[in-house]
């Protein structure tokens, strides 16, 4: 007997427990298989780019925190690098080392949430997430020692940092860095050979190498598809050439590879922090910069390897106290271009897992 079916349109709407933030997918379903998917966002469009034109250069730094709010130090760093490139401001050695330590700590914190939320989407409701938050709270304690804030730090300035690290920072960092590899091993032991995780993520949502390059994916999404492109190696900024670290690269480009890469990147970040701590010189942490800077007329584009991908700022200056135009190249927005092709053909539950494995943050998508 032939049953006549029709496709239905299901709205996996903006307020949903497993869309990371306010993201909406308008899916057309044939039974439970997704036939067509349209991503809709803009529910968090706070016009940060327009607000840049009315704030001074320094006054915009707190707004950059709110872009990718899970990795706020990386956003600060990217913006400060762009203005330093535009205005030609040098940065002292000690500030460069502390910036690298902070950026790598932020990478660990962001990947902890990414992996925890991904596992929550896979079905392990709160257990891995609470384990990851336990580690993340230690990192947030370190950041609170340094900047006074837990989530939106406003710590980097043009020409260095806003203040030096306090005395109790380095012993606490040493204690954290000594313990962290054992925690990562604990997660690996619980999860790497877990049957349910392998069944739900191996072979699901494959992004081929050509498609990843064509859709300008960056960060762990690009590296999982086999392209060895990390801005810290390919186009280094700050003092990254002085450190030795590997770039984990996946082979297949499925959800498991993206998860595995994040775990390996956490290990590499710990390695970089250990090297930076050994080489940390004394000295000033900020070069003398006027309160209101007037960069010369021109434009600059600088990018960093944020935890989510390639975060870039494009600034146009007309020698006044505010930028003429500030554009933010948000990695989460551009990583989403491939989502439709990754999801079509799979079921709804797989779509949630695939979406979780890309790891986006809506503050960057909508800006």
């Amino acid at each position: 007997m032939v049953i006549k079916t029709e496709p239905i349109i299901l709205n996996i709407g903006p307020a949903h427990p497993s869309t990371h933030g306010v993201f909406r997918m308008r899916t057309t379903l044939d039974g439970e298989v997704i036939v067509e998917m349209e991503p809709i966002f803009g529910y968090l469009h706070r016009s940060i780019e327009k607000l840049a034109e009315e704030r001074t250069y320094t006054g915009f730094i707190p707004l950059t925190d709110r872009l990718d709010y899970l990795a706020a130090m990386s956003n600060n760093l990217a913006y400060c690098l762009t203005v330093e490139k535009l205005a030609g401001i040098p940065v002292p050695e000690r500030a460069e080392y502390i910036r690298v330590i902070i950026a790598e700590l932020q990478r660990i914190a962001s990947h902890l949430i990414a992996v925890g939320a991904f596992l929550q989407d896979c079905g392990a409701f709160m257990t891995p997430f609470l384990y990851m938050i336990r580690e993340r709270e230690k990192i947030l304690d370190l950041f609170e020692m340094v900047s006074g804030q837990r989530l939106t730090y406003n710590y980097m300035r043009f020409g260095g940092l806003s203040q030096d690290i306090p005395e109790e920072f380095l012993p606490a960092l040493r204690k954290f860095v000594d313990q962290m590899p054992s925690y990562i091993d604990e997660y690996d032991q619980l999860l790497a050979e877990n049957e349910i995780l392998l069944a739900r993520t191996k072979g699901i949502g494959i992004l081929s190498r050509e498609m990843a390059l064509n859709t300008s994916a960056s960060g762990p999404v690009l590296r999982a598809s086999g392209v060895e492109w990390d801005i810290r190696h390919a186009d280094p900024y700050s003092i990254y050439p002085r450190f030795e670290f590997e770039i984990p690269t996946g082979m297949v480009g499925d959800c498991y590879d993206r998860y595995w890469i994040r775990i390996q990147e956490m290990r590499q970040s710990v390695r970089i922090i250990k090297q930076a701590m050994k080489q940390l010189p004394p000295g000033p942490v900020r070069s003398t910069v006027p309160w209101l800077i007037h960069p010369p007329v021109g434009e600059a584009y600088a990018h960093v390897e944020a935890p989510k991908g390639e975060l870039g700022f494009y600034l146009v200056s007309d020698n006044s106290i505010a930028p003429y135009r500030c554009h933010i190249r948000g990695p989460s927005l551009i990583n989403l271009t491939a989502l439709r092709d990754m999801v079509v053909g799979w079921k709804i539950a797989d779509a949630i897992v695939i979406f979780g494995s890309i790891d986006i943050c809506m503050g960057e998508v909508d800006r």
Partner: protein
Amino acid sequence: MTLVLSTEKLATKLEQQLPGSIIKSNKDNLLVNSGFLFNLASFLKTAPGLEFDFLSNITAVDYYDYFEVIYQLTSTKHNHSLVLKAQCYGRDNPVLPSLVSLWRGADFQEREIYDLMGIKFEGHPNLKRIVLWEGFQGHPLRRDYLSW
């Protein structure tokens, strides 16, 4: 280190290939004639030795007389980068060719430029508002947008 390609040599080479396409070669970017933009971009994507397979960023800036759209291209194979600029005139109906058929990564970025600046891209499969809702009047990121 990503090599930023020298624009004079590249400009002469591209002029030989597609005459009339380069308007001006500045120190770190190439100003391109918008009619030739699509052909130039496909040449840059496929030519051996250039092979720009990664489109990093598309941005639009509003200088009151004209709009300028900036393309940042990178080659992961050869590790070099290039910046292209294209200008379009007129505030009522500025139009540029779309590069979505070459690099799919241009999809959401061109839609956002249409939404916030009002520049239309010909050949884009799905040009509609992306971060603002349908029915929003105006294009907010233009310099003469009055919101109150």
